[in-house]
């Protein structure tokens, strides 16, 4: 059987390079319709998204999640309420909901980490505990750092804090989302650089509506005014929402599936000395005890892109 070959198309009018023998179809074939087919299938199956929030209690995590998804995912814990002694061990608490918008179903799972953040006090900068935590976390999951309760900082203080955090992250090579190594092409890079400039986003969460200038907006009412959540001048919540939901949700899932999970899988298989090599699987010698788990995320190579525009 001959190995798959690329074909020179006699009907294409563009010069053929041996690397990219794409055949331009003349007239209608209908390959485009596959996109609609995919959409239909996706709508039918629904989407899934799992998100975990980490941080001090009282920072407004629950409120933030509720604001993001515009529903009462959690009953937000009223601040100031004594919740008893801080639990020494971390207990994760997950909740799953299905939300629907214009026919698109999303199964959302939110995991909270009560008790963790209370050990953290990163008002001024990231301490070694935080650094260590972030470093390890970044290797297993996409991390999006967020400055919570941003309404207690002025604009200058915000920028200051942001720069400091960015510097901290860079110094300790903490690779937060969007990771630079996964930028595919120049467009991605441009887009992601803009995002990276603004990380961590300074956000405010609110789930109550107020009337401002005749409009109904989500916001926090304070003595000195109403902080509008969705107003870019007041806080960067829209940026976070857009990143997480409107533009990069699929990308987050892809990286988790193709990179983080694969890394985990490799590590796990290696440690159990399982080396499947197909039907004639015979290898018995255990992998050397000091074979390291992958040091960092491996590069995601998506479909080899031969964009024709680059050629001609």
């Amino acid at each position, binding site marked *: 059987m001959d190995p798959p070959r690329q074909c020179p198309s006699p009907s294409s009018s563009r010069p053929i390079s041996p690397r990219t023998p794409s055949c331009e179809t003349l007239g209608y074939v*209908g390959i485009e319709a596959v996109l609609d087919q995919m959409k239909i299938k996706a709508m039918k199956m629904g989407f899934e998204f799992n998100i975990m929030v980490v941080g001090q209690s009282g920072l407004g995590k629950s409120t933030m999640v509720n604001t993001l998804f515009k529903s009462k995912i959690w009953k937000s814990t009223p601040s100031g309420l004594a919740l008893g002694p801080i639990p020494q061990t971390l207990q994760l608490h997950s909740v799953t909901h299905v939300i629907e918008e214009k026919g698109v179903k999303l199964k959302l799972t939110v995991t909270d980490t009560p008790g963790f953040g209370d050990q953290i006090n990163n008002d001024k900068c990231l301490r070694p505990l935080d650094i260590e935590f972030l470093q390890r976390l970044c290797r297993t999951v996409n991390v999006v750092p967020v400055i919570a309760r941003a309404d207690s900082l002025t604009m200058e203080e915000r920028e200051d804090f942001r720069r400091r955090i960015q510097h901290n992250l860079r110094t300790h090579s903490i690779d937060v989302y969007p990771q630079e190594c996964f930028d595919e092409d120049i467009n991605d890079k441009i887009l992601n650089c803009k995002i990276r400039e603004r990380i961590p986003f300074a956000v405010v969460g609110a789930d109550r509506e107020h009337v401002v200038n005749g409009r109904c907006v989500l916001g926090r009412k304070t003595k000195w005014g109403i902080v509008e959540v969705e107003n870019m001048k007041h806080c960067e919540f829209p940026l976070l929402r857009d990143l997480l939901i409107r533009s990069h949700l699929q990308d987050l899932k892809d990286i988790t599936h193709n990179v983080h999970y694969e890394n985990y899988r490799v590590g796990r298989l290696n440690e159990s000395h399982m080396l499947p090599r197909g039907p004639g699987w015979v290898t018995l010698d255990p992998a050397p005890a000091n074979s390291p788990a992958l040091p960092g995320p491996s590069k995601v190579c998506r479909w080899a892109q031969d964009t024709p525009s680059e050629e001609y």
Partner: protein
Amino acid sequence: MATKSCMSSQVSVDEQKKRENIRSLTMSGHVGFESLPDQLVNRSIQQGFCFNILCVGETGIGKSTLIDTLFNTNFEDHESSHFCPHVRLKAQTYELQESNVRLKLTIVNTVGFGDQINKEESYQPIVDYIDAQFEAYLQEELKIKRSLFNYHDSRVHACLYFISPTGHSLKTLDLLAMKSLDSKVNIIPVIAKADAISKTELQKFKIKLMSELVSNGVQIYQFPTDDETVAKINASMNGHLPFAVVGSMDEVKVGNKLVKARQYPWGIVQVENENHCDFVKLREMLICTNMEDLREQTHTRHYELYRRCKLEEMGFSDVGPENKPLSLQETYEAKRHQIYGERQRKEEEMKQMFVQRVKEKEAILKEAERELQAKFEHLKRVHQEERMKLEEKRRLLEEEIISFSKKKATSEIYQNQTFMGSNLKKDKDRKKEPGYRCDLLCFDVRAFETKGGRNDAEEGRECPSTMGRNE
């Protein structure tokens, strides 16, 4: 028709939700994840699509032409020969692009199908090819460091089976081939060169074909009817199976348009005219409506079946003894221990065998050594005996020599006494025959004077003991 596992109907989704205790929430505003399908589509556009078609049919039935017509491209030019000794599969990959969708299309052709006199082995290469693609995917899946998202999926998504337009019924080869392929690939039978059959004959032919397929238990691909958007059209198309197609890349002027058609003296068969043939239906179904479903069926049904069988063959099972669920890891570990144990055992066995053999060999060698030793002893003894005998003989001989010397001495004295008369003559004879001197001593002194004396002398040589008696 087997149920499609991942297209869950609304009922089961609700049930599942109840089971998992998931609340359905209503949102109070616009969040924006309605863009999710678009995000998915964008990613797919980036990745590109992959579609693999296998064409099975006799040489010259029009496979390449139909593919050309379907994708509106001239893929390959040369015709195949009719004289192939075996069925070969030839796969070629092309990159097509329509607006912003890139498609990596692989066409696999069967070369030499149905050309041999003995058609027994005709469809085996096809089954082998399909299995090989599944195997390659399984291998990639089982690797430790794998890159599935990067993997060029070569599994066959659709098999176009070309049926000859005889108008009668399916050939045995067709039946057998389809029967062996229906559990491995989505089969879409088509009637090739449909312009050779009249309309009424075609209807009867289609009915006959479908009933034959059904009665023989061949499961061909049915277009899915569970999604409302496409259910109606798919259902109606299912009723038109198998599609009677005509392929042509030649353009003929009809009216004031150039259309793809085949020109005969009696008329023009237009490929894209639904009254003339089912080509448009095939293109609709294969590409526009169900390409994604074909790919999905291949992955979730045919590949899963192959994978299950293969893993079971390898000895893995989801359920252990006493029906307790087994994890793959447990099975791996168990297998590993088992194989390790076996290896140990085999090593032991071989060691034992080796030791055994060494012992045996040693014994044999020892035996041989002993034998040799015995022989040597024996020979030595024999040699000793011989030697002793020879010693004995020598002793006797020496004794004789001694006694003879004595006798000689005696006879010399005797001779000297009778020396007078015969001295001269003795000297003369002595000069004539010097070598005879020894024997002469044994003679009777009178022997050399007479003729008969020589005879006596010879006699005398043999019996030396008569010496002295002749006096």
